[in-house]
């Protein structure tokens, strides 16, 4: 059995979809996706019941889906972005689901079905995606030997370790330097108030050579804005910032998924989150 994600809006009233040169085979399992952009969500699961051969090369095949079950609650894609292997655009995960039919890995399918968000993996992927590539390279140069990887494809094999290391790296390379910025701006403002001859505004402060100046002043101003508005750093109404709160994600247990080994079919017989079998078209 293989696993796919299928756009739900392609499905007609009789639960069929028309696909040119489908990679689907009878018995394959699929999750149904609805919506676009940040609103994209997984809304149901189904199996491929039959594939009618196309009359000619140019016409699409007629694929009939059956056993359609609604996932309740719906699984927002953005919640799963860090958990799914299929997703590599972690900050814009809908870009990985642009096609009508997208293949999924088995683990991804079951994560969606059981609403299993991997907290450590999500934290690692979110934080690492926020960094410029060069800083990410720096992280892996330092910690490649510290992160367990699989023999095949050099994939990270322990996201708890990776997330802990990255959170520390983020703390050292971003949070700590950033914490100095408001004081730095305050000091400059005090200097500027004295109206010393020749001192321009902070935006013009640079360091480095004339050929390659780094705009320290404007970047400090921009950082101050981020610190006050971005919820990674800014706490609202006395609550923790997201970065502080994310520490709790590291102590959570990773999904062990023991139930998967005992499953013979594509879906378990009883699932407490399944409230009804869909008989109507999703859209």
């Amino acid at each position, binding site marked *: 059995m293989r696993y796919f994600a299928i756009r739900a809006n392609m499905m007609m009233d009789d639960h069929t979809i028309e696909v040119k040169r489908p990679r689907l085979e009878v018995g394959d399992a699929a999750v149904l996706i609805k919506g676009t952009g940040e609103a994209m969500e997984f809304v149901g699961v189904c199996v491929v019941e039959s594939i009618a051969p196309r009359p000619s090369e140019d016409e699409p095949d007629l694929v009939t889906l059956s056993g359609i079950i609604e996932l309740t609650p719906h699984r*927002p894609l953005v919640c799963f972005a860090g958990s799914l292997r299929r997703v590599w655009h972690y900050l814009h995960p809908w870009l990985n689901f642009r096609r009508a039919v997208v293949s999924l890995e088995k683990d991804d399918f079951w994560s969606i079905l059981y609403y299993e968000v991997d907290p450590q993996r999500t934290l690692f992927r979110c934080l690492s995606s926020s960094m410029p590539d060069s800083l990410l390279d720096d992280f892996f140069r330092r910690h490649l030997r510290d992160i367990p990887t699989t023999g095949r494809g050099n994939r990270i094999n322990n996201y708890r370790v990776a997330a802990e290391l990255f959170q520390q790296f983020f703390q050292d390379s971003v949070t700590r330097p950033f914490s*100095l910025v408001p*004081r730095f701006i305050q000091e400059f403002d005090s200097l500027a108030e004295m109206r010393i001859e020749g001192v321009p505004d902070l935006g013009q402060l640079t360091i480095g050579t*004339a050929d390659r100046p780094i705009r320290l*002043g404007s970047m400090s101003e921009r950082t101050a804005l981020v610190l006050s508005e971005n919820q990674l750093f800014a706490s609202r109404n006395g609550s923790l910032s*997201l970065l502080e709160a994310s520490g709790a994600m590291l102590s959570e247990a990773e999904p062990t998924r023991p139930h998967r080994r005992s499953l013979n079919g594509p879906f378990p017989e009883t699932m407490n989150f399944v409230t009804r079998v869909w008989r109507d078209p999703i859209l």
Partner: protein
Amino acid sequence: MERPDFITGLREACEDLREHFDDDGAAWLTDVVPPATSDQPEKRGVEYLFELLCYFALIRGLKQRGVKTIRLVRAPGSTGFRFPYAPGAKENFAFFRFEWEGKVYDACAGTEIRPPGALADDPNEAPDISLQYVNTHVGSDNREPGHVIALWDAKHHKNSMSKADENQLLRWCTLFPRTRMQGQEADSYYRPGDLLEKMCPDAFQVSCILTNARATPFSSTNAYRYGYSFVFEFDGSLDTARPNPTRKQHYKGIRPRSR
């Protein structure tokens, strides 16, 4: 916050961070703020900010102490308000120039100076902040390095200060004997009413390490012998920051006796 909301918020915040620091902003994150690399283990990015913070605090303090003629001498080129990222020639960077009691001084950040009497192959030095006496007039754009009369090393630490920091300042204080200009004896450093006491804010009245770190043990013997101090827990505030040892302790006759 519920799990889906938390993860959605986390993703949005990370996306926002990425957007703020793409393109030229990436240079800020990769060149300025990152931690030390293997190429430059001693230089941590955050120190650039801390050095300039200390430097601006000195300039502000000078102005508060009554230095009136202070002005920025701009770096050549279109980015005139530019300071060094790595040690560089004074002629290529901005600095502050002022007059005090008829003499002209430059306050420089990280520019190179030749130690007096250095042999031909000896390297130039580049203290984080140096106060130089220059033989020129205040309106001049002469950019030659002057005679170092005091210097300061800014050290931003995650934890505590290291012995390497102390050794660095010791090296500079031996290479730049502050008495050269005024003809004092080595054990008469920091006489009451001297130049530094009159024109500098308290934290800058002794050549010292300015650090955000908490106080740690250091060699008092060397500090007295070579005339340097430490300002611990320094965040740029001038109201409460004091050198340790104090100026008075440095001055001959009121030092603690050795056992």
